[in-house]
């Protein structure tokens, strides 16, 4: 096998070499510049173009920002100050409008002395989603998560504490009935639980709430939804829509995965219909048509109606996200559950959904970002969203008529900060999930 030649090359290194620093020109600022900015005529051209673009933006907008006025009572006063300080024809931002009306951008017409309530609700939101989204939050806190929606509703809308509590009791009742009847089959338990809960909500809640409130009047000052506006409205609609749409979305996703033809068809039709039309048309349905579909005499306020349609809208999108999560589960999980004798509902509840939902969290967060941005469209049905509704009515005030750019910048910045943070976080989650995955 071995010939002379091969033998002659036998070689052993007796002293190992230490790593050497890379030769000059392989590091340092110059190299960085050369490699990253000027590594060829095309690259150089791009760099120059880039610099020119930046210069264009800075030269056009910097002075406007820098000449901003923070203290004034009206646009006219702003203009006067700018002219006085920077000379005739100078332009500048009139941030005074933000200073004067920031609370309306954030809270709409919510009573000022009650601002602590939405703020508290918002902070508690993090406690509620913490155990799901953040690893360092103690998992024990998860008990707070199901309580939170009721607490949030109560804090935001106020009124007697008994309403939300009784609605929650409805869920508890459903659970009890489900556990009792569940032994005769999951479907029976499920239906019985649902029927009991619905009956309780329809006929039990309001009289009982009345009685309880008369006996123990626990409550805080009620706030009607007409007072919601600005980011409070946007976040309430976005978050409320997502939370309420989760159960519906999960059901739709399961329906779409089902091998029962009719159920699959209904799910697909619903999902594709909702996803096939613009949100604006659904909002018009909320504002113009929903009352036609309900029994004569029923009347919700517009925010609730919009919430219903927003929920349906996000349910269709959540359903697709959850479907992705379901599809990502290996078949073995279903089979193992079957082999252990778990029936469909138990397998879904204990094995499949916990995993599928976890995988879906980044998708749900993205859906939420989309929803949150889309809530600006409610301006077109007469609600005070932060982007158009609030600025439009601020402009209906004589002092700020004609103000245009400052609200855009302010509202845009808030949207950007919130959404950017969320999208980064969801990317991080996605990476973590990929790492964690078995």
């Amino acid at each position, binding site marked *: 096998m071995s010939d002379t030649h091969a033998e002659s090359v036998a070689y052993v290194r007796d002293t190992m070499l230490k790593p050497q620093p890379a030769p000059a020109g392989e590091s340092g600022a110059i190299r960085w510049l050369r490699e990253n900015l000027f590594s060829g005529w095309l690259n150089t051209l*791009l760099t120059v173009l880039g610099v020119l673009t930046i210069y264009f933006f800075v030269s056009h907008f910097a002075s406007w920002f820098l000449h901003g006025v923070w203290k004034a009572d009206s646009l006219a006063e702003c203009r006067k100050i700018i002219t006085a300080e920077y000379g005739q024809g100078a332009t500048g931002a009139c941030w005074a409008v933000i200073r004067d009306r920031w609370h309306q951008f954030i809270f709409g017409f919510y009573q000022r002395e009650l601002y602590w309530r939405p703020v508290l609700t918002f902070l508690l939101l993090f406690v509620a989603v913490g155990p799901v989204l953040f690893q360092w939050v103690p998992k024990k806190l998860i008990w707070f998560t199901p309580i939170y929606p009721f607490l949030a509703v109560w804090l935001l809308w106020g009124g007697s504490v008994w309403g939300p509590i009784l609605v929650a009791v409805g869920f508890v009742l459903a659970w009890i009935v489900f556990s009792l009847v569940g032994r005769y089959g999951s479907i029976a338990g499920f239906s019985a639980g649902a029927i009991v809960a619905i009956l309780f909500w329809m006929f039990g809640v309001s009289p009982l709430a009345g009685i309880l409130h008369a006996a123990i009047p626990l409550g805080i000052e009620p706030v009607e939804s007409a007072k919601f506006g600005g980011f409070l409205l946007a976040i309430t609609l976005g978050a409320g829509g997502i939370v309420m749409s989760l159960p519906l979305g999960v059901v739709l996703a399961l329906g779409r995965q089902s091998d029962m033809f009719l159920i699959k068809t209904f799910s697909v039709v619903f999902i594709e219909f909702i996803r096939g039309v613009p949100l604006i048309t659904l909002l018009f349905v909320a504002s113009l048509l929903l009352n036609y579909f309900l029994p*004569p005499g029923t009347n919700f306020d517009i925010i609730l109606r919009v919430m219903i349609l927003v929920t349906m809208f996000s349910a269709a999108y959540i359903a697709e996200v959850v479907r992705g999560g379901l599809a990502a589960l290996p078949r073995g999980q279903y089979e193992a559950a079957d082999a252990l004798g778990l029936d469909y509902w138990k397998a879904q509840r204990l094995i499949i959904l916990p995993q599928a939902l976890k995988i879906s969290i980044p998708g749900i967060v993205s859906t939420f970002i989309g929803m949150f941005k889309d809530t600006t469209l409610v301006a*077109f049905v007469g609600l005070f969203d932060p*982007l158009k509704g609030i600025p439009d009515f601020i402009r209906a005030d004589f002092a700020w008529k004609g103000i245009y750019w400052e609200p855009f910048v302010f509202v845009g910045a808030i949207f950007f900060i919130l959404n950017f943070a969320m999208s980064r976080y969801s990317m991080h989650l996605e990476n973590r999930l990929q790492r964690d995955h078995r």
Partner: protein
Amino acid sequence: MTTAHDAPEHSGFRLSQLIYDTRYRSLTIQVVVFFLVMAFVGWLVDNTIQNLNALGKDFNFGFLWQRAGYDIGNALIPYNNDMTHGRAMLVGLVNTLWISFLGCVAATILGVVVGVLRLSKNWLVARMMTIYVEVFRNIPLLLWILVAIALLTEVAPSPNAYKINPETGEAKLSMVFESIAFTNRYTAIPSIHFDRSLGVIDTAFMPISLNVLAIAVVLGLCFWINKRLLAHAGRVQEATGKRPTTWWKSALILVVPTLALLIALGFNPDEPVLKGFNFTGGTNVSNSFVALWAGLSLYTAAFIAEIVRAGILAISKGQTEAAYALGLRPNRTMNLVILPQALRVIIPPLISQYLNLTKNSSLAIAVGYLELRGTLGGITLNQTGRELEAITLMMLLYLAISLTISGVMNVYNNRVKLKER
């Protein structure tokens, strides 16, 4: 070994089988669900009928044949206020399709450029593109549309600025190439005019210019010939290994006949001239259109850029290396190896972005561009008070557009699906 078991007797059908037998169980569930859903739908319909009766209204699309009475700023098909609401709806639909089409084209071009530049080795440009993508993705589209229209109205000059001052004989501003004028209400561009026109056929839907038809036919022919040429080049390559250079032949074939036809028809642009308040003669592209178009394209391009980037990144480094190791040049590698694969990854989400853009075109409401929502779902609805009919019809039309687009996507997906074991 004894058989310790007797087969259970197969008694007839028992009611409990409806629940416990796998064969009937799903049937039972489906029937129950079906009745529940139908009951729900019936309830909705019944409510609607009652409510309509209470209001003394009916469900009737007759309004579509009534006189509309309002004007539409930029109708692509002939329209005036004496025509019907149905016609106005059609105008809106055509406008929706038109803005969506142009939006998709612009968003794709921009998105691809940004997506590729984001991967560029140029640090500055890559960073700038990242900023662009993040800023546009995370701020509501509505804001971009409003910003676009505000910029256009505040920054661009009014048509007056192009007026020639009789004393000095000069205008404050002169038109670009003597034929394009940007103003704060529209962009005036030349329209096409033929000195030796072939005439126009009037159809009920829209007049068809024979000139345009002729040009389209000639262009189609040229493309066909060019395709033949390329196919020929391919055959030569197969036979000899050498590919003949074709680019200049292609260029000739594509350009010369069309040019000849244009000259024969006496083509010349009809340049806009300022008359009174406005430009006439050319075509005025309204700012609401431009703003909506810009907003939609810029916003969607940010998403497309991400899709393109992800698509290119998804084609593993190994593919490039394998191609290089085989001696393929970078541009050939791109054309023969990377792009065909990246496209499969890119196109499905790309099409769903097209869908989003089409749906988002309904935000025209913010700038007053009259598309489907503005005509049928806006003015018509308002003037006739037929909410139920108008909104139903509008949703169905949007749905039809969406389903068509996603149908195309499915066909494509099935065509290019990678063969797996």
